[in-house]
């Protein structure tokens, strides 16, 4: 089995480490880099808990090997907050709307919502549901998550304080 030294730009910082070829990106983020915000659920691409943004687009980090991310840009849930630790409008809206209970799906939901709002600041509920369609939540019934994404869009547009 081959082992590779890789460098991934995670949340704006170049981070290096060794990765056996079979190490998935999510295991690399959590176990090698210590960034445990990204969760591992099903490990075969069904639940969406491990979603991260790679080169500007949401992907499942359990469905790629870390070595494949060498030289690429990755944003994890840790990268959504401001430099001073202030929560993003989307994270705030999750809190305000009780859009989580156990929190297991939350990093993936935040990434999916963040990706949607990066190109659409006036999403319809249907567009929001479509954007989180690849993410499973067993607590909320999704309604509060949809409301949170909608509120975050309103906040970013400046319609609510």
């Amino acid at each position: 089995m081959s082992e590779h030294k890789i460098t991934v730009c995670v949340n704006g910082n170049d981070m290096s480490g060794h990765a056996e070829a079979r190490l998935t990106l999510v295991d690399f983020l959590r176990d090698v880099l210590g960034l445990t915000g990204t969760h591992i659920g099903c490990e075969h691409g069904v639940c969406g808990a491990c979603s991260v943004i790679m080169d500007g687009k949401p992907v499942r980090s359990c469905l790629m090997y870390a070595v494949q991310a060498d030289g690429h840009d990755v944003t994890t849930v840790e990268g959504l907050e401001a430099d001073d630790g202030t929560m993003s409008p989307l994270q705030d809206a999750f809190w305000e709307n009780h859009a989580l209970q156990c929190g297991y799906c939350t990093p993936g939901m935040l990434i999916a919502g963040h990706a949607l709002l990066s190109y659409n600041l006036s999403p319809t509920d249907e567009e929001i549901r479509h954007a989180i369609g690849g993410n499973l939540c067993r607590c909320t019934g999704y309604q509060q998550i949809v409301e949170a994404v909608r509120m975050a869009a309103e906040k970013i547009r400046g319609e609510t304080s």
Partner: protein
Amino acid sequence: MKAAPFDYRRATSIDDACRALSEGGDEARLIAGGQTLVPLMAMRLARPTLLIDINGIAEMSGIAIDGDHLVIGGGTRQSDALGSEIVQRHLPLLADALSHVGHDQTRNRGTIGGSLANADPAAELPLIAQLLEADMIARSVESTRTIAASSFFESAMATALAPNECLTEIRFPLWREQKTGYGFHEVSIRDSDFALAAAAVQLTLDDKGACTRLHIAIGGASPAPMRLGEVESALLGTNLEDRTLHAETARLATLVDPQGDIHADASYRRRVARVMTERALQSARDRAMGTNP
């Protein structure tokens, strides 16, 4: 849920990938988007000893019109094809089907060639390739050959690709007749999940509304996507009135023999296959008549 150990190398060109495949032996596999292969490896249903990464090979991706074909590179991301103006304008059926393939997160990695080469029986892209009689261009160190879709999809997860071949390009024939329309309908457990049954239709009408050209195919109800030649023959030349479509699609009861599973039993899938086929025919007819753009 961790893959068995393997070696990894990145290919720099199609030639390089083909060489690595032939040197790597039977247990070498190409990896593109990985959206089918990585789960199979996690479940250890696949245990390649060498993965050759074809991501980032520029000559593997691209979308273009070449005469009467839409040509898509095997490594083209599904999300890029879905967002492509060329695809939307020349082959809207493919864009429609792509919107049902997985989710944003999987389409951003998953490739057109990867979905076809893995040939999941419920996947949408093999269904469209089968429907339109697409040509698959397969390259190896020794040769480049064209495989017709009708002989490409052999069974569930099995294709005519040899272990040393790379699916570099897919050529979808374009129908240039004026009154051409398509329909695509599927039923799945969740939005964007694999289809329990899916049906795709493309057809052409003459000035009097009679059907002069007709392709019908279904997916999810058989080990590989299948054309419904018997229904096509029965409907050609007719005006595709609702009651005709309803009567002729009844043939599906004996034409398809789906496998039941925990999500849906065989009789339900058979019924859904018929209803989806009927709806896809109606949509295609209405689009061809210009009443359903």
